[in-house]
């Protein structure tokens, strides 16, 4: 039986994910596993940006808004409800509904790509300022004090579905985080392989052309935006769970910029690339923060500039298009000749 190379790659990725999920707890101590759990949350955040930008062609400079909304929605809901089962759903639903409202005005209002970037960035800054100014006892939702700049500490962790008396320990949290990441990856792959996914990619390629053959780009872009917001919300939920804490910094420009760098380094137009970019850069940040030879931010900046200059296409496309064909592991693909009709990605 001959397997399509794309599906073979997908199966390999899922197998590798499962291997990491069950293998890492055997080789890492608890501290290492907890650190890897936050990398997984950031990988899911990067996946949302990679799906939106790389496949939908929508450049959001404020994806942190949905990440933060997911995190805050989880924290507020779980503090009020106790059991984490419904709060996880709320952490996905709140960003999706917010994205539906924002996206409706952006896409049906025919806002151009550049302004979509500006609007999403502005929304993220507004949320940062808004949550930042909620210090004091007056600012609470039910039992959850919003806490302004200090954020919400002591957020209860995930528990076994429907059983608030069985919270997950850090080891179990690892399985929940990686399991969620693998599930999201599979769902996004399935979406991209569906008719909907083909239309999304076609709209990225040439929006006018897709419109003239009967597809409504506004509708497809809105759905793509909502899906990416839901994934970012789930990532925010995992992030809040990791530290049991959330603060307005999740809405910061740093978060929005960081996720773009994850995608660029890992490779735009792939799902694997953003995840690898996120884990790699988060690891570098950790290493840089624990040494005293050079300023961590300076060192990281140099690494990022070097990446953009030397590997502009990102790590995964480099391996896929140059390394694997060179090693004759996969056949070279025919390259499209630019027609001048493509929408810039």
């Amino acid at each position, binding site marked *: 039986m001959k397997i399509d190379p794309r599906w073979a790659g997908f199966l390999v990725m899922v197998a590798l994910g499962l291997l990491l999920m069950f293998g890492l707890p055997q080789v890492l101590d608890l501290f290492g596993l907890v650190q890897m759990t936050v990398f997984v949350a950031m990988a899911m955040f990067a996946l949302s940006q990679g799906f939106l930008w790389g496949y939908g062609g929508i450049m959001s400079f404020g994806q942190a808004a949905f990440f933060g909304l997911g995190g805050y929605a989880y924290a507020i809901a779980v503090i009020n409800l106790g059991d984490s089962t419904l709060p996880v759903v709320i952490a996905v639903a709140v960003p999706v509904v917010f994205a539906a409202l924002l996206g409706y005005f952006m896409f049906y209002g025919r806002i151009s790509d550049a302004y979509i970037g500006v609007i999403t960035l502005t929304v993220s800054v507004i949320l940062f300022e808004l949550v930042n100014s909620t210090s004091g006892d007056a600012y609470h939702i039910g039992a959850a004090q919003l806490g302004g700049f200090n954020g919400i500490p002591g957020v209860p962790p995930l528990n076994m579905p429907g059983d608030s008396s069985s919270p997950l320990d850090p080891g179990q949290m690892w399985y929940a985080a990686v399991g969620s990441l693998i599930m999201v990856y599979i769902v996004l792959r399935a979406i991209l392989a569906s*008719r909907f996914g*083909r*239309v999304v*990619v*076609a709209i990225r*390629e*040439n929006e*006018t*052309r*897709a*419109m*003239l*053959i*009967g*597809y*409504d780009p506004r509708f497809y872009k809105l759905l793509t935006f909502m899906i990416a917001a839901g994934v970012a919300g789930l990532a925010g939920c995992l992030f809040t769970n990791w530290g049991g804490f959330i603060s307005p910094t999740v809405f910061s420009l740093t978060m929005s910029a960081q996720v773009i760098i994850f995608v660029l380094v890992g490779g735009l137009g792939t799902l694997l690339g953003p995840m690898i970019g996120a884990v790699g850069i988060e690891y570098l940040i950790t290493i840089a923060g624990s040494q005293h030879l050079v300023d961590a931010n300076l060192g990281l900046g140099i690494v990022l500039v070097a990446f953009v200059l030397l590997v502009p296409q990102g790590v995964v496309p480099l391996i896929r298009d140059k390394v694997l064909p060179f090693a004759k592991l996969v056949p070279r*693909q*025919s*390259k*499209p*000749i*630019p*027609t*001048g*009709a*493509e929408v810039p990605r």
Partner: protein
Amino acid sequence: MTILAVSRLRSGYGRIPILAGVTLGVGEGEIVGILGHNGMGKTTLLRTLMGYLPATDGSVQFDGRDITRLSPTARARLGIGYVPQGREIFATLSVAENLRMGCLRQPDADQTIAAILQDFPRLTRLLDRMGGALSGGEQQLLALARCLCGAPRLILLDEPTEGIQPSIIEEIIETLLAVRRRRPVTIVLVEQNLNFIAALSNRILILQKGEVTREIPPEVARDRTMIDEFVGMA
């Protein structure tokens, strides 16, 4: 029966008027050619008929329904196909994926594509190739095939021979004639290649300064002296 009725249609780009009141009718199953100099409004006419450019005045009726204010998406869903100038295919999708994109309302895309490929044998062996890796002529055939996948009742075809080598032009003519024999499709064809437009059209309209000024039979398009007199473009 008239499938397309255009009345005093005006349109343009910003404040620059291009169409100055076009009136024409196209019967079901007809191939109507539109001939004119560069800048006379041929492409603008097709873009306005498709709704890509808004009409500033006049009306467009398709199958008895006023579609003047409908979006391009809505017009495509009603059964109007548009193959624009410059053979705009999806360059990074394969030929097969390009064809699937055209099967908007088809319950069985594979069956639809198989039926369409009977008229496009050249594409059959290129199904896995990227759209952008095809030659210009092959891209034009792909654009036509993709349009047909949507089972349009009316096709707006804009200069399909532009930049195409002569051998493929003959193939496009044969393909379009075969398509017409198999399907009850109506075509409005904008073209500057006189042999091409004469070979396909039932009648030809001359467009000058944004208006239809004359209708000629296709034989006249083969007579360069006559065309020079009517259009000044032979």
